[in-house]
Structure formats: C-alpha cells, structure tokens
C-alpha cells in the first residue's frame, strides 16, 4: 500500500512536472477573412522554454522565422500564396528537454472580409437611402433642397463677363483625373461651358495634367455642341500648362493679369496655392467662386472669393445645376447619411461612457 501510494505520488508529480519540462503544442490556423496570404502559427504550454518557429524553403531547408520566450503565443506569417503548402517546425528548448513538431498547412482564400462588415452595412444603408430618394423624386415627390448661393451666382458671373467682353477662367483643380473632386469639377465645367456657349463668352480652362486636359476638352466641346455653338468652340482655350504645382499657379496668375477675366471659377482639389490664385484674382476685380473638399484650404477661399462651395456642395453642384429631380433627390440621401452618422456618434459616446467597447470594436476593425 505504501509503495503504491509513493508510486502514485511520483506519477502525479511527473504529470505536473511535464509542462514545466516544456512539452509544448503547436498548431497552425488559417488567418481569417483574407486573400489566403497568411497563416497563424500558435504554440502553447512552453513555459520555461525558448520557442523557435522555422519555415521550410523550396529546398525543404528550415530557416528561422520567429523566436520567443513566451509560454503561449502566436505569430502571423504573411505574404503567402493560397496555391502553396508550407511546412513549419516549432522547436521548444528548455533546460531539461527539447520538443520539436513539424506541421504543414495551406492558406485559404475567403470570400468576404468580415472585418469590413460594418463598412459594408453603412455603405448599403446610405446608398439605399440615396436610391430611395431618387425613386421618390422620379415619382414626382417634391423634395426641398436649400439654395447654394455660389451656384445660383453662376449666371450672374457669366452675364457680367459677357457685358464686359471679358473671358471666364475655370481652374479644374490641381489633382489628376483619379481624384473624385476633379471629376466633380468636370461635371460643373460641363454646365458652365453650356452657359458660356449660349452667352457667347470665351471660356479659358488651363489644366495641370494631360488626362484632365483630354477630359476637359471633351466636356467643353460636347457642351458647345449641345448648345448648338460648336463654331464658337476654341480648342486652344483648353490647354495644358505644366505638371509643376507652382509653375501651374504662376501660369494661371499670368493669365489672370493679362486676360483680366471677369469671372474666375476654382473648382476641385487645391493645396497651398489656393490663396495665391484667389488673391491674384481679387486684385484684378473678378467675381470669384471657389469650391473644394480640402478642408484646410477653405478658409483661404472664403476670405478672398465672393462665393465658396464647402465640401459636399462641390459634389452636389452638378445635381443642383442640372435641376433634374432625380439628381436633386440624391442630395437628400446625403442628409440621411449625415443624420445616420450623428446617431452613430451619439451611440458611440454613450456606449464608451458605459464601458461597452463592442460598438467601437464593430466599427474599429475596418481601420
């Protein structure tokens, strides 16, 4: 009995001591919600050991990938291919023992970035709101849209230029065509060019990038054609200046001082040169309208221009100018989006104040 008891005690002690001797376990899991480019390598039970993770190359030679002294941990191997199988070896070395384990795994491509679920839901809700309002407008519902003075003044500006016999200057921003502000600028240019064609006023459009030049030429030409004044269209009035930011600004300043346009329009993406353009235009006595979504340039335009389109007004401009009920309906969708964001911010404040982090985490995973 006594020897049996001693035997059991020794066995128990051995059982307890085994983890202390570094008997680690190794597991490979596919990294969730990705394009099959990563694997999670996890180890456990390696207290008192130095854990080394190795990866085999194409010649099946193992190279060190990661080393740790943590008893439990994980390492994410990235830049993998979903078409290949990878071999990993974990070696856990303690003073008393050494454990080695080799495993193979292949990353799997998923069909959805679950981490972006919150982003998708918000996008669907806002897009659905916009589409619903467009549908409502199509069915004849009268939707109130507030006046945007900068856009209402466009007629006044063109009229003034016609009276004075001076041209209109239109600057489509300093970004390339991949910037949505430039595309919004092209849509406004279309409306302005149509009016300029009707009033028979010269329209000067200096461009910074070649792709913008091509788009601007096409837009202006089509607008003149639609107004039935293709004969008045001058290709040389829509031209390329330079790619250099301040060279472009210097060129536009020169145009403003030489040609003395009666109306200047600065629509699109602008940076440090915004005040140089606006002040030079102010000094020539032109009526100026600016619009940009660059929040830190807005103060300069507000100070020096007669009218300024702030942020979303630039993107709403085309819908507003077209007076098309469907497009105007979409502007109501923007307002719904703002209301939604205000509610989410308030919910966020409340949940964080109460110590519930799930709300913030749900949205935080996207970033």
């Amino acid at each position, binding site marked *: 009995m006594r020897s049996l008891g001693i035997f059991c005690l020794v066995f128990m002690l051995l059982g307890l001591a085994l983890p202390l001797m570094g008997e680690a376990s190794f597991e490979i899991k596919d990294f969730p919600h990705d394009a099959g480019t990563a694997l999670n390598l996890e180890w456990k039970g390696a207290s008192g050991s130095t854990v080394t993770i190795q990866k085999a190359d194409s010649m099946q030679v193992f190279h060190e990938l990661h080393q740790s002294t943590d008893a439990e941990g994980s390492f994410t191997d*990235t*830049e993998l291919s979903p078409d290949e199988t990878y071999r990993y070896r974990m070696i856990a070395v303690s003073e008393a023992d050494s454990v080695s384990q080799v495993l193979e795994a292949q990353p799997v491509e998923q069909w959805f970035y679950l981490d972006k679920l919150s982003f998708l839901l918000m996008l669907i809700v806002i897009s659905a709101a916009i589409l619903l309002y467009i549908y409502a407008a199509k069915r004849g519902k009268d939707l109130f849209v507030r006046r945007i003075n900068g856009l209402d003044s466009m007629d006044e500006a063109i009229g003034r230029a016609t009276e004075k016999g001076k041209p209109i200057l239109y600057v489509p921003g*300093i*970004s390339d065509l991949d*910037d949505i502000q430039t595309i919004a600028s092209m849509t406004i240019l279309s409306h302005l060019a149509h009016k300029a064609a009707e009033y028979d006023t010269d329209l000067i459009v200096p461009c910074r990038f070649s792709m913008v030049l091509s788009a601007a030429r096409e837009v202006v030409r089509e607008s003149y054609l639609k107004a039935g004044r293709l004969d008045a269209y001058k290709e040389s009035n829509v031209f390329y200046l330079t*790619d*250099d*930011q*301040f060279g472009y600004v210097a060129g536009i300043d020169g145009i403003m001082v030489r040609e003395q346009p009666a109306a200047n329009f600065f629509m699109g*993406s602008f*940076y*440090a040169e915004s005040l140089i353009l606006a002040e030079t235009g102010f*000094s020539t006595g032109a009526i100026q309208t600016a619009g940009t979504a*660059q*929040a*830190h340039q807005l103060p300069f335009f507000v100070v020096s221009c007669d009218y300024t389109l702030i942020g979303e007004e630039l993107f709403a401009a085309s819908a507003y100018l077209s007076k098309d009920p469907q497009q105007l309906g979409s502007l109501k969708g923007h307002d719904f989006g703002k209301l939604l964001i205000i509610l989410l911010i308030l919910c966020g404040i409340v949940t964080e104040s109460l110590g519930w982090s799930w709300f913030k985490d749900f949205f*935080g995973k996207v*970033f």
Partner: protein
Amino acid sequence: MSISPQTERRIIYLVLFLAVLLPLLFPIGWRTESSPHVRMAHKLVEQSPAGSVAIVSFDYDPASMTELQPMAVAMIDHAWSKGHKVIATALWPQGPQLADQAFRALSEKYPEKQYGVDYVNLGYKVGGMVTIQAMGRSLVEVYPTDTGGTALNQIPMLAKVNTLRDIAYISSLSSGDPGIKQWVMAAHDMYNVPVTGGTTAISAPGFIPYINSQNQLIGLLGGLKAAAEYEGLIGMENGSATAKMDSQSVAHLLILIFIAIGNYKVWRNKRIKRTQDLKEEI
C-alpha cells in the same frame, strides 16, 4: 490723403519683405519650446533600435523646401545618430534631387556614412497610393534599381528588406498629394508600419485628425516652427529652421499690426460716414 488699394497692397508687401529680411541678416536668437506632436515624432525615431531601416519619403518640391528640407536634414541627422539606415524615396518628381541635397548637407558631420551601407536613394515613382501598396507587396517590384542603376539585391543595406513590413518606420515629408495621407492609408493601415511625417504649416491642420488612438500618424512636424523644435530636441546647433524662426516671428507680429491697422481704418471710415450722414440730415 487716400491711398488706392493697389498702393496699399504694395506698401504691405514692402514692409513685410523688410520684416522677413532684416532678422535673417541680424539674427535675434529667440527660443522655441517643443510641442507634443513634435516630441511624438522625435520619440519614434529615438526609440527605434540601432540597425533599423527607415524610409524618408521626399514628397515635396523646391517650392516647399524652405519648411521641409530642414525637417529632412534634422530627421536624417537624428536617424544616423541612432545608427539607423535611411532609404530615400519620392512620390514627387523633384524628390530624389532634394534627397541627395539632404544627404550632402550631412556628409561633413557624418563622413563615415557610406552610400549603399547607411543610406540609399531609390528615386521617384509615379502612382502615389498605388506605388505604396505595391511596395507593401514587393519593394524590388517598384524599385528594381536605385537612382544610380544599381540593382537592389546588390545594395548591402537592403539585403533583408523585401517589403514595407521590414521597415521600422516611415517619415513622409509632404506638401500636398500624394504624401502623408497615402502613406498612412497604405503603409500603416494595410501593413502596420509606423508612419510619422512633416508638412507645411498651412497643410498641418488637415493631418491632425490622423494623430489618434489608432496611431495612424505618430506625431507631425507642421511648418518651420516644428522643424526648429525638432532641431532643438536633437541638439542641432545652427540649424537652418532655427535661424529662420526669427523672421517668421517678426512677420507674424507684423501681420497682427496690419490687422489692427485694417480694423482702425474700417472704424475711422464708419465714423466719417456717420458724421457725413448727420451733416446731411441737418
């Protein structure tokens, strides 16, 4: 005596020109305290271990070099003093030349630093965000050679640098687009590489929202004052930003005086008009 608006403008420009010129010729020596955002950027470089490989991206052109070039020189000076290796890249066409100028400016202080071992200039690539995302997948795919035509696999300091994930931190000195925003969105948000940077004073407020709890941007040098603060933090004597701060301070004071004069003028004109209206009524 009334002055036309054009003459008024010219007087303002002349006085401002003198206010900026004179302190440059006769330095005053005013000191600048460091601000939290500059200290954050400094800490990122300070705490990176020796041997770290960093990217300094020259995303500006000569128009902004007055504010940004001192930042570049100060940051590279700091990085080299900590034993870091510096890769210069550029998302703007004139960036590579400005990078070479920065390295040349420090060559006297650090004569032991060798090209290819301690620093390298990879040059300019068009594409902005697209380029940075491609660098996250493979650096050699975007930059097969450096500006001198040397293949990347023959540059000693890049032996263990394959993608952006092998970079300790990125400093984007930018005056517009593409620049800091693209580095934050691609390098930090996609590949978790710490990003810091510097920009012109005008653009700085636009990047402050990125200095947040998610550490999208770790500190920011905004303008000449921030460059002077950074020079002070690294103990750089006779830094170019510090020398220019006197001019900036005098110019700021002058603008306040102009604002006061402008308000006085409006008040005086209102008074004259009120007096005239009263006289007409009588």
